[in-house]
């Protein structure tokens, strides 16, 4: 059984790299990605699962990273917008100028990744 009390060391697999991190069990994935890994592509918006600006892909499926505990994401393959690089989807977005201020564009990209791949 995994038990984390107070601050604990966890291992996250993000964009193909393994990161060993000290987190509180109550830390949410969004804050760990941004605050500890500097991956600021996922954006805080509503912080209650409505807006989708914080969407990342976990084990191939889009999830709102503001609603996932970092320690519950251990062992999962996490992909953030930084990890998709010059993908055909990102290229299509920029060629079609499919953004306004751009704040939620990472969320749109990560939510569209699967349907686009299909």
């Amino acid at each position, binding site marked *: *059984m*995994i*038990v*984390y*009390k*107070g601050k*604990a060391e966890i291992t996250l697999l993000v964009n193909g790299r393994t990161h060993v991190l000290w987190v*509180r*069990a*109550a*830390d*949410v994935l969004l*804050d760990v990605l941004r605050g500890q890994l500097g991956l600021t592509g996922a954006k805080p918006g509503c*912080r*209650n*699962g409505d807006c*989708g600006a914080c*969407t990342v892909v*976990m084990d191939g*499926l*889009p*999830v*709102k990273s*503001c*609603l*996932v*505990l970092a*320690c*519950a994401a251990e062992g999962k393959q996490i992909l953030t917008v930084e990890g998709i690089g010059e993908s055909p989807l990102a290229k299509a977005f920029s060629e079609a100028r499919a953004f306004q201020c751009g704040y939620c564009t990472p969320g749109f990209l990560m*939510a569209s990744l699967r349907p686009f791949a299909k």
Partner: protein
Amino acid sequence: MIPCNFDYYRPESLQELGQAIREAPRPFQFLAGGTEIVTMAQAGEVAPKAVIDLKAIPACNKLAMENGRLHMGAALTLTQAATSGLFPLLGSVARRISDHTNQCTITLGGNICGTIAYREAILPLLLSEARAGFFRKGRVVEQKLADCFHGRLQREEETALLYLCVEQKYLSMPYVHVKKVKNEKIDYPLLTLAALKAPEGVRLAVSGLCSFPFLVECAALADPSRMPGQRAEAVIKSLPEQPRADSFASAAWRAFIMKQAVEDAIARLEGRGG
């Protein structure tokens, strides 16, 4: 950021679940998808001392036909339940709860045990006389879901919902599912109606109309000698409480759309062309 600190337990078997329940500081909460716990903890509405994550327990993740029953672990996500295609009515309901991203996180058990009033995933389970398996005081106990669901799941403290089971015969019965919302396709329901055509007649379960989801209990519903409109009237008269009135819709509007939806569901399920 969640302002409180808590401990995190992730048991990988029922034995470890028992150990986690014994050892975790009180109060603790079971954690499934976490969408509600994290939201409420960020808002300071709950402050558990520990969470017990159910997602690594095999019984909570199983999705299989076994001895003529579909076994669905409580930690299966709505997406897993829907994409399996094993219980089409449940799939149809699950695909309209929240949005497709949250469906990858929200679990069947979390939706049913959550505090939010809608709990739409319960509707197909009530209609199909599902049984629920609980982990209570170190033992697995199974009971009929309808016997322990009265608007919300009644369970003793520190009892986890492990799985839900539905007999195979219900999985392929004709059904109708309607979700009416105020504006967007994705929203909380003004009314969600699930209807199943069982051999004894049409059954209905409803969410959004009143302050809790419920199975319609109305003798006239299954009386084929009455027209769908008359039966819909009788259903409206048999509601367990007045329809809700809030900023989304008045009670009269909710009652009106309910009557229309019931009439339509009966007509469709009985092939009356209406």
